[in-house]
């Protein structure tokens, strides 16, 4: 088998193609929402310009076209192609509200904060969750298992933004343990970005509440899934064989049970990434943490459609890329995926 055939048949390649097609479809859907829905942003904007600034229809239309980087007189399909072309060049139009600022620049200032806070939270929550999950699976039925399982069930059933409000009320207002108002935003004003202790500690201080919220609201799910998955794995033949061979308990727990029990959780990991990135719109709203989720809320509130469209696209693309990476990792951990050919 030569290398081109190998490439086309490889898991990574097929998975990459699917991710790419998904991006194309999302971009297409967004285009049609913006361009074709009744009361779509372009029509609204043209109407606004005409009524507020007394422009003629043609002037307003030209202004709208410039803002969205679209030629509104061209046939729809060629508009669609232009839109795609602009997108791949990184041109998402300009903001209504912050006049003239490029949407791409706005996104570049918001996205890192969301990736940072959500990324750290996923890592923390996943690690804590699988560790505690294995532990209570081994002590199933015991007091520790009952306590941790019950707390986990309660945590999974609290919507993350409500958990955020509860944390604000309890820690910030009732017990007054944390200075809520100075923790808003992503960094304190006047602090220069750089590899300094001052900057890094400030970044973590501002991200602390969102991260705590994400971790608390997802860790219960991981604990319970890992517990269930470990219990299933414990009954497998290879574990019995390992025990019969007299392998040390520690080795069985981590290399035989743990490694195999984690695998089914990876499908949930991709779902979780999407859920957390999506939920950032609510969590960042609660803590006034200025990432893409907050930007989505504020752009919808201000009817800043080019920004809204760009932010929605970037959240979706971030989720697709993250899912792609999680799947690659899964393929590496579970050789059956790569060899099997089916997904």
């Amino acid at each position, binding site marked *: 088998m030569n290398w081109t055939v190998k490439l086309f048949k490889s898991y990574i390649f097929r998975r990459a193609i699917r991710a790419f097609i998904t991006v194309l479809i999302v971009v297409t859907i967004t285009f049609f929402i913006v361009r074709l829905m009744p009361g779509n942003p372009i029509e609204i904007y043209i109407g606004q310009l005409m009524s507020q600034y007394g422009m003629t229809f043609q002037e307003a239309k030209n202004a709208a076209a410039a803002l969205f980087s679209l030629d509104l007189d061209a046939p729809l399909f060629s508009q669609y192609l232009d839109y795609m072309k602009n997108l791949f060049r990184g041109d998402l139009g300009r903001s209504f509200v912050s006049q003239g600022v490029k949407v791409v620049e706005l996104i570049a200032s918001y996205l890192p904060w969301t990736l940072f806070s959500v990324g750290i939270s996923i890592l923390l929550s996943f690690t804590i969750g699988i560790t505690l999950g294995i532990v209570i699976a081994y002590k199933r039925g015991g007091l520790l298992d009952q306590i941790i399982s019950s707390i986990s069930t309660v945590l999974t059933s609290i919507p993350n933004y409500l958990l955020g409000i509860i944390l604000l009320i309890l820690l910030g207002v009732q017990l007054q343990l944390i200075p809520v108002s100075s923790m808003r935003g992503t960094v304190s004003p006047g602090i220069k970005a750089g590899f300094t202790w001052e900057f890094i500690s400030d970044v973590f201080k501002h991200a602390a509440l969102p991260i705590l919220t994400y971790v608390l609201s997802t860790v219960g799910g991981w604990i319970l899934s890992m517990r269930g998955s470990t219990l299933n794995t414990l009954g497998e033949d290879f574990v019995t064989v390992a025990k019969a061979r007299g392998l040390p308990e520690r080795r069985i727990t981590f290399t035989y049970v743990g490694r195999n029990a984690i695998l089914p959780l990876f499908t949930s990991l991709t779902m979780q990434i999407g859920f957390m990135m999506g939920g950032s719109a*609510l969590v960042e709203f609660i803590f006034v943490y200025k990432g893409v989720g907050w930007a989505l809320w504020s752009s919808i509130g201000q009817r800043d459609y080019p920004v809204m469209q760009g932010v929605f696209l970037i959240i979706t693309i971030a989720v697709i890329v993250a899912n792609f990476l999680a799947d690659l990792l899964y393929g590496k951990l579970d050789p059956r995926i790569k060899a099997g050919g089916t997904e």
Partner: protein
Amino acid sequence: MKKFKNFLWAVFVQPLILIAQNKIGLAGFIVLLVIIFMSFVGPYIIPLDTKVKLDKIYQPPSWEHILGTDSEGKDVFSQIVHGGKAVLTVAFLAALFSTMIAVTLGITSGFVGGRTDNIIMFITEVVLTIPQFPLLAVLAAFIRLSNPTLLAFILGAVSWPALTRAIRSQALSLRERDFIEAAKILDLGALHIIFSEILPNMMSYITISFVMAMTGAIYSQVGLILLGLVPLSGQNWGIMIQLAWTRGAIFFKDSLSYILSPILAIVLFQWSAVSFTRSLEGIFNPRLRVRR
């Protein structure tokens, strides 16, 4: 008639008997019933307090107002009683829509197979990847979701993919079972196989998924309301939270019971739904049951 009786037994009575054997599941089930009763019958018993009493703002819980009063001095408890119906109805309808779509697509995909399966699964995967809440928020910017049924429909229309995938895999595993093979050999027809053989065998699973879909719908619905993207009015736990939030009630020490009450109502519903379905899962999945 006998068949119908058997069906009712398998779907409703048997699970209840099994539920009673699991303490947490039973607790969840009872709380669920209490919340539903309070929300749908309660409003006829407890009148809504609409009088503004400026001398009684943000009162802590007392015998007169067991959950305290809000920013206008109105009784919070009566608002909790009246605010559940709207939230639960939208969640119920949304779960109904998404379960119907999921069951139809999932069973078609699993049983027809081949190209149809590939197409349905591809669409499902794509929709599944789009983050649900931002999509809803963007749609809410264009569609005025002032009508609860429309809101429920939109919520249902974006939340079917995960369930579809799960139902398809159930359908795939059922397809290989002996009794389905037998029905096929007897040539009982696709409709008979689907409605008399497959659906009853999936009913427990569908019930679980339906309740979980309701919790998902509550998450998105209350989230949209909190962000101010749904122009709903009237008594509603979500609107209570949003009002408390926009009025800055969380920054008053005395308003604790006012803002926590609707939050706890929602959390309690979510918790009871999750515990109830977890124990159902344990009952229906013998693998989990043996190793309890």
